[in-house]
């Protein structure tokens, strides 16, 4: 990083190809490029190991290869997550949670590669995802329960005179779900990457003693990889919980 460059410059969006649709600017940017890479990687990672045509019916077919074991781990991880939080009915929404988790996870992880771009560090992207989840869950609730879905805002067993106070609070907390979901992921990515860049600036500034921030960066990179996983996990488990709320109300 050149001296004097802002640690926030890494988040800058650079259009790679100018495109326009119905008068809107939909340029293919570096953000879009890394979304492409993430999507293609996930599809290849999870599909290719299972593409081998297995015609013989022998036992050897059932031994998973290394890649299959890796893909299977992700599969059963999300499977357990959704069954534990949303129950057996939640399994219908397994593909959604799986896609969300993998998209965010690999978006975060690819963002850890130097000179790459972290699209999950953009509030508009995380807000898009969170709003999608919010809309999906709300529609699911209305489809499953009709107007009874509004009873979700009424806490059972509460004295009636408390309701005027608590129903607005419940509604606000419900409406703030997508915001908290979006901001959590965005802020974590932003803070981590900014911190890494700031300390990277110290390395060259301190000369010989730059080794200290260098060691710190190495440790911080490990922590960032953990956070990359953790935030994807949090996003996925909250989605599961919201689906559970929509399915079972209280």
């Amino acid at each position, binding site marked *: 990083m050149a001296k004097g460059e802002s640690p926030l410059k890494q988040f800058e969006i650079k259009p790679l190809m100018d495109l326009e649709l119905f008068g809107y600017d939909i340029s293919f940017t570096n953000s*879009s490029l890394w979304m492409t890479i993430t999507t293609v990687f996930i599809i290849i990672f999870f599909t290719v190991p299972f593409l081998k045509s297995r015609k013989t019916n022998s036992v050897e077919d059932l031994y998973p290869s290394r890649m299959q074991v890796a893909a299977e781990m992700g599969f059963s991880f999300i499977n357990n997550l959704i069954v534990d939080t949303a129950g057996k009915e939640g399994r219908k929404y397994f593909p959604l949670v799986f896609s969300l988790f993998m998209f965010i996870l690999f978006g975060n992880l690819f963002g850890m590669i130097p000179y790459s771009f972290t699209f999950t560090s953009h*509030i508009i992207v995380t807000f898009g995802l969170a709003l999608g989840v919010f809309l999906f869950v709300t529609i699911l609730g209305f489809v499953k329960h009709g107007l009874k879905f509004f009873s979700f805002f009424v806490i059972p067993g509460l004295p009636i005179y408390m309701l005027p106070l608590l129903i607005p609070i419940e509604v606000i907390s419900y409406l703030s779900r997508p915001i908290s979901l979006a901001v959590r992921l965005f802020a974590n990515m932003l803070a981590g990457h900014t911190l890494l860049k700031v300390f990277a600036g110290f390395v060259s500034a301190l000369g010989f003693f730059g080794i200290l921030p260098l060691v710190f960066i190495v440790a911080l990179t490990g922590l960032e990889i953990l956070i990359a996983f953790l935030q994807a996990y949090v996003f996925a488990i909250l989605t599961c919980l919201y689906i559970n709320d929509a399915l079972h109300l209280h």
Partner: protein
Amino acid sequence: MPQLEQIEFFISQLFWLGVFFVILFVVLTYITLPKIRAFLNKRDEFVQSHISKQDELIKKAEELIENYELKLNEAKNQASQIIAEAKESALKESEKLIKATEDKIQQEIKNTEERISKEKNLAIAELNDQLKDSASTFLSKITSFDKGNIKI
């Protein structure tokens, strides 16, 4: 902060996010996840079938062991019975043999005694005869001396 400054790219970002997330979701839902699920199901079925097969085999083995023990006990009983019978018959046989031998010996003794007593009688009678003879000759010798047969 570029995140909030570059508002002109908001629509582009949302557009491409939608495009790629939908592509990812559709491909995963209709191609990838069914493939993984089928693979896992196949393996689960295989394991389940082997577990049930194993249970069956264990049951069979237990049955065989039971059968074997039953047969073993039967055979043991039979064997002890046969041994007892053999002992009994052997005892009878030997007793018979001993008795027969004793009878024979008794018979022999009797016979021998009879023979001995017969011979004894015979010998006594002979002896008596001889005695009688010698007595008569002796007597005749004595009596002939009187008649003058003796010449001195």
